[in-house]
């Protein structure tokens, strides 16, 4: 079939080799991992790049990787209120090469209010990372300065409250306040922390529920912090009173504190099948929090060091169970919200 000439073939060869060379070389210098490095641990993040969970893990893996002596590759699987990423971990081989950073109570919500196939006992727990309390924010020009005043205002005028997700801690906090004081709030899901932040800054909503670290303490001067869903004042956002201090103890979960845990999870069975690998991971993870470089780095991340809170495997599992319990207790609050709509 003579429609081929030598020059054409040469061009092809040169082109193919060149393209391969360029892309591989380019990849290496652009700061991507080494070639042919089979050894790595995949960290699944059930949220998009750039979100709170993603930032928290990416600030952690460099140190953890040094201590563990292996590369960590973060993979984002956003969607389904963390169920998409959750099923990735659930279906992964429990051999220590796949772990995830997840959050409570989103984790439980995926099986309580969605059809996720897994439960608490389907995972092994390596440790917690930090606890970000639930906090209410308002645009600065409003006639209320704390949640108590907001409740009075909302009773008279009605109010819109933005939340970060339909079935997490912010929804629960908003619903509990609404129910406790019989307010008939108009609760609007702003689809994520940045949505709530923008809506508060733009004055589109009367109040927004978020976590202070996720909200970004750099905005402390631009908003009014109405209060945190905790018994005592938290450290990250000093101007925000605690619900407990405001005397709003009637709201459920104030005493226990309602917030968002971030934690490291492994597919269930790792601990039984490869106890050595589990131990090694758990120990090196614990050591991350002792590392000075890590501490400096999280300090630069909007004061993440203020809320960093490492707990070992047993305590972490306990937290997960407690969260599952209170989420079940208040499941009907959220279900009523969904199905009354």
């Amino acid at each position, binding site marked *: 079939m003579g429609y081929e000439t030598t020059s054409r073939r040469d*061009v092809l060869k040169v082109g193919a080799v060149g393209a391969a060379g*360029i892309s591989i070389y380019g990849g290496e210098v*652009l700061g*991507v991992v080494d070639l042919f490095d089979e050894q790595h641990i995949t960290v699944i993040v059930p949220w998009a790049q750039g979100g709170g969970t993603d930032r928290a893990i990416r600030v952690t893996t460099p140190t953890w990787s040094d201590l563990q002596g292996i590369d960590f590759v973060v993979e984002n699987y956003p969607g389904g209120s963390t*169920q998409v990423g959750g099923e990735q971990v659930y279906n992964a081989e429990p051999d220590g090469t796949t772990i995830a950073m997840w959050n409570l109570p989103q984790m439980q919500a995926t099986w309580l209010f969605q059809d996720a196939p897994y439960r608490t006992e389907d995972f092994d727990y390596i440790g917690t990372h930090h606890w970000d309390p639930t906090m209410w924010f308002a645009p600065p020009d409003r006639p209320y300065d704390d949640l108590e005043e907001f409740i009075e205002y909302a009773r008279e005028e009605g109010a819109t409250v933005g939340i970060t997700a339909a079935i997490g801690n912010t929804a629960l906090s908003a619903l509990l306040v609404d129910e406790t004081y019989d307010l008939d709030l108009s609760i609007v*899901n702003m689809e994520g922390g940045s949505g709530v932040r923008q809506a508060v800054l733009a004055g*589109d909503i009367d109040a927004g529920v978020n976590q202070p670290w996720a909200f970004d303490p750099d905005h402390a001067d631009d908003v009014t912090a109405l209060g945190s869903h905790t018994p005592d004042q938290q450290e990250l956002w000093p101007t925000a009173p605690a619900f407990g201090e405001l005397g709003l103890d009637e709201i459920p979960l104030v005493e226990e504190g309602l917030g968002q845990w971030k934690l490291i999870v492994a597919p269930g069975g790792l601990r039984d099948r490869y106890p050595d690998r589990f131990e090694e991971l758990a120990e090196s993870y614990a050591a991350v929090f002792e590392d000075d470089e890590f501490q400096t780095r999280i300090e630069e991340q909007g004061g993440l060091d203020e809320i960093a809170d490492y707990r070992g495997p047993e305590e972490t599992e306990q937290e997960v169970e407690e969260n599952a319990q209170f989420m079940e207790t208040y499941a009907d609050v959220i279900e009523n919200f969904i199905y009354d709509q």
Partner: protein
Amino acid sequence: MIDVVFTPASIEAGLGILTDPYILLAIVLGTAIGVVFGAIPGFSATMTIVLFTPVTIAFEPTSALIFLVSAYGGAVYGGSIPAILINTPGAPGSVVTCWDGYELTKQGRAVYTLAVSAIVSGIAGLFAAAVLLVFAPPISSFALNFGPPEMFLLAVFALTIIPAAKGSSLSKALLAGAFGLLIGTIGNDPQLSQSRATFDQTALLDGVDFIVVLIGLFVLTEVFRLGYRGTVVTEDNDRTGGSLSEVYNGVRAVVSRPIETIRGMFIGAFVGSLPGAGADVANFVSYNEAKRWASDELASRFGNGTIEGVIAADSSNNATQGGALIPTLTLGIPGSGATAALLGAIALHGLNPGPGLFDSSGDIVYAMILSLFIGNVLILLYGVSGSQYFGKLAYIPVRYIIPAVTVLAIVGAFAVRNATVDLYIVLLFGIVGILFVAYDYPLVSIVLGVILGDIAESGFVTGWLLTGESATAFLFNSPIAIGLLVLTALSLVITVLKN
């Protein structure tokens, strides 16, 4: 006003990013890859960006986006190479380049024509980058006034203007757009996280990824069509030989025709900024204008190998890039397939496309815009010094292109989020794309629908809830909302009158 708009800190940060040697390398590589792939017959700028987006997943966002925006510019220029050499436009934006470019090649002036094309493309690209730098920031600060109802109305407006711009059937364009929007609602709903039409696929809880849709519609559809169309390559001889003096003649030809180049650039930048119209429309408008303004004697030579024709085509198609990026970066509304692909890459890398983009990621956006200046100088250099060599790519037989590109499309679609269901989605949209081409549905309508799906739904639902669930409060939320309503009505009326 100006200093509020031009946040100097962001520009400075953007410039700072550009001094990073890795970023410079990303520009050099991106532009080269763009030119190389653009020069392959049947390979458009959109396909280049779409296929390379999954490859950039591992890059950090800044280098990834700068790499892709550089590849965009390179590919628009590269598309002219096969147009001139083998009468096969590398992309719809280079169709007009064929008319005079190929005639000149037949007269033995291939190197001269390639040089003119490179110079004009580079200059037009620089002009367009300047336009973008001047107009994008004020538009973006204006866009910050867009609340949820305005975002919904903007999406509706963007979809209705396409049939007006493209002259396609109103019902077909709207059907394509509505179907795209409906595809965009697959997955959990934004208020209550209830799953919709996910075919029991967990990955679809997060919706259909629009990069996968783009790969299907723009890459697979195109290879499937290449499968029956082929190209003319086999009949042609390599005509890239020629002396350096021809390059010099090319420089002189451009320098002595400043008006022609400038006219093309303005037309390109303007047409590019319209939603739905890109390089494919701009080069026709520019060519027709050039012919209209020419003397009768010159006008009669258009189409028979006159360099003014090449200048008109290539000055306009490269200038569209800057114009098309204006609505893409400021409003999150892409005006063309290529910018839609770029928008997909922006979202993939964790930046929020939309009115808040300059606010939240100003440094990266400015670095992208400023990188265009370097990229277009590179196009000039690559083109003047090496278009003969890039030209060899135009002679790659199409049978070598089809298998490899099909594999790249499939693998790339999977790589976006490692979901098996995406393999079938990309195939499905590859086939839907053939129906679109065969029955004259505007591809950009469905793409825009899928891309705007989230914005439109969130805008509608949150807007509705926040405006107290009243239609009048929603529709007449602000002067901007009313303005958008008027524009939407206008574009519908224009389309109906045209038909």
